[in-house]
């Protein structure tokens, strides 16, 4: 299990306040998003994973590394925090260079890696300016450069897209994807569900300190039995199809689209429904497309947590 991030029955209490409780997680390679409203425990989980705080109970391992050994952990892990403070008086370049030097890199290596990381986040022009004069987006990017600069195998990024303009967002998302494709564990927390949906290989849904669901988003959706699956079908005879579906008993609700070229179906037996649909197609109804309408993060989040404080 040395290629996973493991949480075994982890709880964290701040005095009497609950941070996270009884978390059991196993995070594989790829991009994993931590999703949940404010105060759900996303940052606590990240701080636990990086040893910035210690669990009250339980055990955490990052690729076989204990989190109370920063000298080993941060050789394989980079963390871009939400803390918006920097050592005083440093330029962007000095910030990254100093970080690498403190980490034990020699001067030449540190210089080279610092410039590489700065270029990866497109901050080369501002690198020799003091961080105190940076915009919010620039500060976000220099933090990302710090997390990336030593080529870690695990990237932990707390709200990494905050403050970035749309172009920078897409550049950073491409960066995360590239890291994941190279075999990195990329753990991202975000409020912005459509971005999470776009980039995540798996999600961890958190609510009030508890893990509500984890895994690939489609698998999570299939496990939510109390909410019927919604399927959008585009076809030439939606009313005929609707009638046949209702007769079949697999369908509990049907809505015809306004343009009379499609319908939305709710079913509790998605497998049975798809078998049925194949027969309909054979019986002369011309089906253009079939697509699940609610197996995205947005819907899953809404079903499991509700829609508090979430940007869609």
């Amino acid at each position, binding site marked *: 299990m040395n290629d996973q991030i493991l949480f075994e029955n982890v709880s964290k209490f*701040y005095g009497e306040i609950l941070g996270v409780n009884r978390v059991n997680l196993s995070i594989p390679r790829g991009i994993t998003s931590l999703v949940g409203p404010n105060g759900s425990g996303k940052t606590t989980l990240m*701080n636990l994973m*990086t*040893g*910035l*705080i*210690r669990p009250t109970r339980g055990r955490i391992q990052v690729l076989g590394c204990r989190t*109370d050994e*920063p*000298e*080993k*952990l*941060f*050789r*394989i892990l*980079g*963390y871009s*925090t939400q*803390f*918006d*403070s*920097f*050592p*005083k*008086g440093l330029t962007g370049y000095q*910030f990254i260079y*100093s*970080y690498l*030097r*403190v*980490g*034990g*890199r*020699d001067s030449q290596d540190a210089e080279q890696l610092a410039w590489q990381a700065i270029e990866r986040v497109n901050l080369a022009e501002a690198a020799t300016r003091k961080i105190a004069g940076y915009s919010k987006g620039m500060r976000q990017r220099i933090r990302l450069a*710090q997390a990336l600069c*030593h*080529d*870690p*195998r695990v990237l932990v990024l707390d709200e990494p897209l905050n403050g970035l303009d749309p172009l920078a967002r897409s550049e950073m998302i491409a960066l995360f994807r590239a890291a994941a494709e*190279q*075999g*990195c564990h990329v753990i991202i927390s975000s409020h912005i569900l459509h971005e999470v949906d776009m980039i995540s290989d798996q999600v961890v849904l958190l609510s009030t300190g508890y893990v509500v669901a984890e895994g690939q988003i489609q698998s999570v959706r299939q496990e939510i039995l109390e909410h019927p699956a919604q399927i959008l079908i585009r076809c030439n005879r939606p009313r005929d199809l609707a009638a046949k579906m209702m007769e079949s008993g697999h369908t509990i609700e049907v809505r015809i689209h306004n343009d009379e070229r499609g319908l939305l179906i709710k079913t509790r037996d998605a497998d049975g429904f798809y078998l049925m649909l194949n027969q309909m197609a054979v019986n002369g109804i011309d089906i253009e497309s079939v697509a699940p309408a609610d197996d995205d993060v947005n819907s899953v989040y809404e079903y499991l947590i509700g829609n508090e404080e979430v940007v869609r």
Partner: protein
Amino acid sequence: MTRPGLPRIDLGQINSVVRLEMKKILFARRGIWIYVLALLPLVLFTAYDFQASREQARRRQIANQSQRPLTYQDLLTVKSGMTNQEVIALLGRPALNFHWREQRAQGPDSFTDVAHERYHYSDGSNDLFVELSDGKVTDANIQTGNSLGEDSIVFASVFQFFYLRLAIFFGCLGIFMNLFRGEILDKSLHFYFLSPIRREALMIGKFLAGLLATCAIFLTSEFLQIAVFLWHFSPTVRDLYLYHNHGLEDSAAYLGVTALACLGYGAFFLVAGMLFRNPILPAAAILIWEAVNPFLPTLLKQFSIIYYLKSLCPVNIPSPPGTPPLLSLLISNSDPVAAPVAILGVFIMATLALYVSSLQVRRMEINYTSE
């Protein structure tokens, strides 16, 4: 993706921390008061030096204006009851001669004139004031110039009661307590905690930076104080003091005690900064503990820094006659220890404090919101 051959030498990492921290400590705007504290005795001694030099120049000028060169022994020959002629025969005409007349009442309607004179002689280092009435010496008063013996006691007093107990104490408080606490308040400690560096190595790096910075500030000031203190004495007196009268050893001892004070107090304030959120409480507690040290039993005395530092101070400050016993106890070192024991004592105390710091730094969490 990790690069092979990563350096594992902690010394290099400690060096990087020291360099970063030194820059922060020495150029921190909030640390200006530490420089003021360190330089205050220097300002005091410079002013004293200036005044003493002026006095000396004035004495030399008077000595030069005398009819013949005088020695200290010459000045001692003038006694009460001598006539002005006898004085002039012994010392020559005075360089400065003040005279005035007094009408003294003899009865209800009768007065007599009394002629007063004051002769001022100098051998270049000491003054002699001779008071004469009607041509006879009534008083011969010698005012000695600056004596290295007396001045060295003044220097020792300033060192022990201001420099050691206040300037270095509060300077170390300001620097070492902020090594971790300051970064927690600035919310920037995570910069180090996210690096692949052992927390103990980080703590040592920060401590060394603090020690180097305090030593640079306080040793420089102490060195300059010694230089200024000796400046107004003649080269002969200086050489005599430095090379034949333990002057060099005393100066080295002052510098050594200063460095040991930075080490001892630094280690204590480092751990206090990690254990307490409010620095005022531990600072007050340590200050009181150090202040009451002379009144503690010997066993308890050993758990303070000042106990060892006082034993290493080269000049004992004598209590003036009539000093209250409690104050006298505070001034004198009633229970001194041998120099090697004292040095070892400071090192042991500092090591203990650093050991507690190393345990504490491993337990530290980043939780800025609770600060």
